[in-house]
C-alpha cells in the first residue's frame, strides 16, 4: 500500500482503539482505563443500566424517559451479519445539542451494549463493533437537547450456507 500521510494511520489507530473500548464495555468487562476515560467525560459508569435484561428497562435505567423515532439519526449496519460476534455498527446524527449516544440489542441477554457521552462541540458520530447472540432489532438512542430519539434496524444472524 502506498500512503504518504502519517495522519491516515494515526486516525485509523484511534478509531480502532475506540472500537475496542466500546466492545469491552459491551461485554461487561471493564478495563482499567475505562472508568478514567468516562470520568474525564464527567460522568460515572451506568452500572444499573448495564444490568437490565430488556430494552425498555435499560432505557428507563439509563435515561428515565421514552424515545421517539427520528429520521435525523443515520444507523449504518449490515442487514445480515457476517459474524455475529463482531457486528460493525455506526450512528451519526444531524440532531443538535447531542449529549449521548447508546446502542441496544433487544434479543441479547443484557440489552444495553454501549453508551457514549458526547461532550459539547464533539461530532455526534460513533462506530463500534457489537456482539449479537441471534437475529435481533438493534436500537440506537440519541439524547439531544434533553430529549431522547431513536432509530432501529433488524440485523440477521444466520448459520449460513446454501448460497445459489
Amino acid at each position, binding site marked *: 500500500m502506498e500512503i504518504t500521510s502519517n495522519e491516515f494511520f494515526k486516525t485509523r489507530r484511534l478509531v*480502532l482503539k475506540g472500537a475496542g473500548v466500546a466492545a469491552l464495555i459491551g461485554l461487561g468487562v471493564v478495563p482499567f482505563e475505562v472508568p478514567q476515560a468516562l470520568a474525564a467525560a464527567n460522568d460515572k459508569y451506568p452500572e444499573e443500566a448495564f444490568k437490565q435484561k430488556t430494552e425498555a428497562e435499560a432505557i428507563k435505567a439509563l435515561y428515565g424517559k421514552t424515545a421517539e423515532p427520528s429520521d435525523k439519526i443515520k444507523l449504518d449496519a449490515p*442487514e*445480515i451479519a457476517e459474524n455475529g460476534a463482531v457486528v460493525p455498527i455506526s450512528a451519526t446524527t444531524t440532531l443538535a445539542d447531542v449529549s449521548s449516544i447508546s446502542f441496544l440489542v433487544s434479543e441479547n441477554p443484557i440489552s444495553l451494549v454501549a453508551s457514549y457521552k458526547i461532550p459539547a462541540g464533539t461530532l455526534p458520530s460513533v462506530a463500534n463493533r457489537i456482539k449479537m447472540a441471534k437475529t435481533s432489532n438493534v436500537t440506537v438512542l440519541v439524547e439531544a437537547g434533553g430529549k431522547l430519539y431513536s432509530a432501529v434496524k433488524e440485523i440477521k444472524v444466520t*448459520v*449460513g*450456507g*446454501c*448460497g*445459489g
Partner: protein
Amino acid sequence: MIIRRRDFLKASAAATLTAGLPRLARGVDTASVYDLERFGNARILHITDTHAQLKPVFFREPSVNIGVGSMAGQPPHLVGKAFLDRFGIRPDSADAYAFSCVEFEKAAARFGRLGGFAHLKTLVEKLRADVGERRTLLLDGGDLWQGTGFANAMKGADMVEAANLLGIEAMTGHWEFTYGEQVLRDNLARFKGEFLAQNVFLTEEAAFNDAKAFDPASGRVFKPSIIKEIGGHRVAIIGQAFPYVPIAHPKRFTPDWKFGIRDEELQKLVDGHRNNDKVEAVILLSHNGMDVDLKLAGRVTGIDVILGGHTHDAIPLPITVTNAGGVTLVTNAGSNGKFIGVLDLDLAKGKVANVRYRLLPVFAELLKPDPAMQALIDKMRQPYVDDWDDKLAAADRLLYRRGNFSGTVDQLICDALLNELEAEITLSPGFRWGLTTLAGQPLTMEDVLSETAITYPETYVATMTGHQIKDVLEDVCDNLFNVDPYYQQGGDMVRVGGLAYTCTPAETVGKRISELKLANGKHLEAGKSYKVAGWASVNQQSGAPVWDVVAKHLRAGRPPNRDAPGVTLKGVDDNPGITKLG
C-alpha cells in the same frame, strides 16, 4: 429515460420463436431468429451465471419459485403457464421450452440443448457484427468460474481462457471468491477484462495490516466501475458482487474482505459518474439476485439499467421500477449459458433516450459452434475427460435440481448420503446450479460433478438434536422467504432426506417449519439426538468429497428411491409461483 410501451411489445414479439423452427433451421450458420431489428446506437450483451458450462446443456426451469409478501405473483416468482401468460409466450413454442418447465421432457427432445461457449461465441460475434465496431460491450455477471468438475479441477483457469476468447470486457463475482484470494488474483491477472465490485471492502484488521486493495483510502478491494465508450457515447458500468459471500460460503475463503449490499456507497458512485464524469448511461452489473435488485432499484437513483443475475431467473422483459430520480429497468438473464441478454440503447446527449431489451435463448442446434472456441474447450477438457466419462448408471427418470424445496437429483444425492454414510437424516444444499439429465441418459462422473463441484465438497456425519435440525431449516427458509429481499441470500431451501416436514412460506422465521417426521413416521423430538449426514458445510469438514459418495452409490446399482420428497406446503394454493405442470 422515456420507455415506450410499444417497444417492449415489439421486443416481446421478436423474442417469440415459431414452434418447430429450430429443427427446420438446423445446419445454418445463424438462424434468422437471431436477426434483430436495428435499434439505438449502443449494444450491451449480458451473460450471467453460466456456471462454467462450456458445452450445451439441458436445464429445466423451476416448477416451484414462490414469492411472498409484495413479491407474491410478481416476476420472477411465476412458473409454468402463469409465467408464459405473463410474458405472452405461446405454449408449445421453443421459447416456452427455454423459459419455463412446461412439458420439459417432450420439448427437450424436440428443441435440444441450449448454450455452450462455442455456440455462444458464434452468437456474440453475430450480435457484435450486426451493429458494427466499437458499438458493443460484453458483460458477465459472475458465477462464470464454477459449476463443472473441469472448472473445479482447474480452479476457474479454464473459464478465464474461455472468457478471454469470448471477449468478456467486464465481470463481477460470487463463486469466483470460493477459490480464495490467491487463486482469484492469479486468475484475474490473466483475465483481459475488468473485475468490478463496488461492495467489497477490507476488514478493519486487514486494512490495519495494509492488505492489498484497489483503493487503500476507502479500503475498496476491487475497482468499483469503469467508463466505456460505446458508439461514441460514455457509459458507466458498476460491478456489484454477491453481497453475502462470507455468510453463504466458508468465511475462510475470504477472511480479509467484507461484503454487503451497500446502497449508499453505490449511490455515491452513481452520482459521481453522473455529475463529474458526465456519462450518458449508468449500468449496474449485479449479482444481487432479482428481488434484491428490484428493491435496490427503488432506493438508489440514477441507474438506467440493472443487468442482474444470481437467482437464475430467466425473465424475457425488463421490470420497470420507479424511484425518486426516475425509472430503473431491472433484468435477470437466466443461467448455465442458456441465454444472452441484448440491451440496445439509444443514447443522446447526456441521457438514455430509449432502450430495447431481449433475452435470447441460445439454441445450440441453431448455431454453428465457433471452431476456435470449440478447439479450446476440447483442449481444456482433454486431461480429465478419460477419467470422468465412464457410465456410472443411467438416469432412472428426469433428474433436475432447480426448485424451491427439492429436485430429483438432490433426492438421489440424499439417498446416496443416507446409504453410504448410514445416517438417519441428510441435508443437502439448495444450490440453483446443477444440470438436468433426461430419463435414460447415461450418468457419468462428469455429470455427478456438474451437480457437486465446489471447493468445500467434504461430507460430514454429525449428531444433531431435533431442535438444532429445525433451527437449520428455519434459518435457511428465512433466507428464501423473508419478506424483505435485503434479508434473503438467494439459493433454494436445503434439501432433506429421511425427514418430512410442512412449510408455511408466508410465516415468519421460527414459525415456517412444522410437523417434522422421520422416515419411519415418528415425530422428530426436539431434545433427542439424530445422526445427520451432509455436505457443503460452512464449517471445515473432513469426510470424503460428496461426488465420490454419490458415484459409489450409483455404481452399487441400488434400486432407485421413487418416494416423493416429504415437503408439504401450506398457504400457497393460489400462488402462481408453484405448478404441478412438467
